[in-house]
């Protein structure tokens, strides 16, 4: 099984996210993560999907999504040309002594402490999915009370592959 990330620019129409996720269910594709948010131009939404499957399936995924009426543009975010980020919020049970340790681990990973309670600590950490996995691995000895991961968002490096809204409107 291979993994690929896709950047999809879609018209900001009602139900667009459900059309895309529905396509994955219908055709039996595997979705690893999906994130969506408005672009700088509110007419469009950027969706980042990480999908898994064999090469033929991944090629089909790109073609089938590209065929959807609401989809303006789809391209693969190749690892060597792109930057990926994911955000995780981790609530850990922590007494006074645990807090000191946790804060120093978080510092190493450039995480932020965003909430402190008498018995808990909330850490925000941003990075590639593997960085977040590594950080969670370090918390093995602690009790994670709650974990929220946003899923992966990605962009191409540089300006060569920028998708300009003006160019999309012609399609």
């Amino acid at each position, binding site marked *: 099984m291979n993994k690929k990330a896709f950047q999809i620019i879609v018209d900001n129409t009602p139900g667009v996210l459900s059309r895309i996720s529905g396509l994955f269910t219908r055709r039996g*594709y595997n979705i690893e993560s999906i994130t969506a948010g408005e672009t700088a131009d509110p007419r469009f939404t950027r969706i980042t999907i990480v999908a898994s499957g064999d090469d033929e399936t991944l090629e089909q995924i790109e073609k089938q999504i590209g065929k959807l009426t609401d989809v303006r543009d789809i391209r693969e975010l190749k690892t060597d040309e792109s930057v990926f980020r994911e955000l995780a919020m981790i609530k850990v049970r922590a007494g006074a002594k645990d807090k000191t340790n946790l804060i120093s681990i978080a510092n190493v990973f450039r995480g932020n402490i965003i909430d402190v309670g008498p018995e808990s600590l909330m850490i925000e950490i941003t990075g590639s999915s593997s960085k977040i996995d590594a950080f969670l691995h370090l918390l093995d000895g602690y009790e994670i009370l709650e974990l929220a991961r946003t899923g992966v968002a990605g962009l191409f490096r540089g300006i060569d592959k920028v998708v300009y809204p003006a160019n999309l409107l012609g399609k």
Partner: protein
Amino acid sequence: MNGAQAMVKCLEAEGVERLYGYSGAAICPFYDALLSSKITPVLVRQEQNAAHMASGYARMKGRAGVCVVTSGPGATNLITGIATAFADSIPLVCITGQVVSSMIGSDVFQEADITGAVESFVKYSYLVRDAQDLPRIMKEAFYIAESGRRGPVLIDVPTDVMACEIKKYVYPDKVQMRTYKPTVEGNGAQIAKVIRELEKAERPIMCVGGGVALSGAIDEIRAFVRKYQIPVVSTMMGIGAMPSGDNLYFGMVGNNGRPYANRAVGESDLLLVVGARVADRAVNRPDLITENKVLIHIDVDPAEIGKNVGPTIPLVGDIRHVFRQIDKSEIHMKDHAAWINTLCEYRLRTQEVRAKAGKAYVDVRAFLETLSLRMDKNAVFVCDVGQNQIWSTHYFKVSEKGRFMTSGGMGTMGYAIPAAFGASQARPDRQTIALCGDGGFQMSMCELGTIAQYGGDIGIVILRNNTLGMVMETIHSLYDSRATMVDLGKDTPDYKKIAEAYGMGYEMLDGKGDMEQALYSFLHADGARILEVSVDPRDRV
């Protein structure tokens, strides 16, 4: 044992005796396995009607109806039937064959994403990936369909899953679902509040819906309102919860309802909504209904409560259970005699709309009234959708032990004939009559083949006016009477010849005929038969 054989075993374990369906390549393994079972399959003529037959069957059996069809077009044809059952909360278990698992998503022959397509019309659906899950899924499907607010559940089974060997077949005793736990018993504190309000009420009224029959609470409700002298109105789905001739019954509410029923609701100081949705056709302005009264809403589905109107007291639970709980307390009601007298007066003062029919035609109001009075006391009556439905709600008298069924929420034309056939198979001991217009009849007349083949014993009344009458009424009121798309043609079909073609009995009644005589021979004949009734196309509900 393979997956298909396990599915049959599961159906047997659920006590299924009969199912409705249509075969095809993707469902062949199932029907092959069914050969060695006592379950009787009924081969319909179009899949939609398999769902309607299962619906009629379920409503008379009080258990989920089962329909089994093939993949692709077989499955998509089922959709209208599923949506119809969903709108009226009828329990169905619908099984569809699916293409081989590895091909799903590649648009092979007769592939349709049926779980995706029915998403908004089912309580739940399954696409079975692993044959080992089949017993659990079948158990859950029946449980979900038959518990809480009833409804259809769909199970989509790829052919390779049906062919797969089951390592260990065990049909579970119990359902273990963390996410689905319907409330059956009413909350004690809420019941106490309901009783307090009932004791304060001077002008109480109960509005019953389809939930009463679905939860098997007709006896409980009648006993309650008779004991405490509470007048009753109903929604369309609630017709028959009270006998039409009961002193305490004041007819159907809503746009198509009785003016005195609506007035009764308007002037009450306590409205007890029981197993009804407070839907748009029943209540014109739901937001205004609570202005001058206490509203108690009792329903098994918490999402219905407060959806259209905010109740003063919500009470979640199965109607039968809730009223058995309420019955445990002695309630000291005020005297409602004066209030009931007022409502009786409203009813008496209402001028009945009487025949507008020309001499050549049958007076449809008198006809329906006479039909209902001449039918067996425990007969089952299924009306279709259109003018025939609205007339039936007004003029058909449901007797103490009679049943009245129709497609209420979805208003699916063509429901009556297959549903009546299903009902008659569930209760062959009861007389079953379907009533439809000539539009609805032609939507499901292919099922005359099924009825003839399986020796169906139902009477079909066709109100013939060569017109889509209900649409014509909309055109009259909103489109300046510019008739379009409502004319069914004058001379075709010849219903007598159709009856002959299927070996069915046939009678014709027009304005010159003897109604009593025609009804006598129609109602006393055996086997499937048709009574064609000539109705004035200008008549309105």
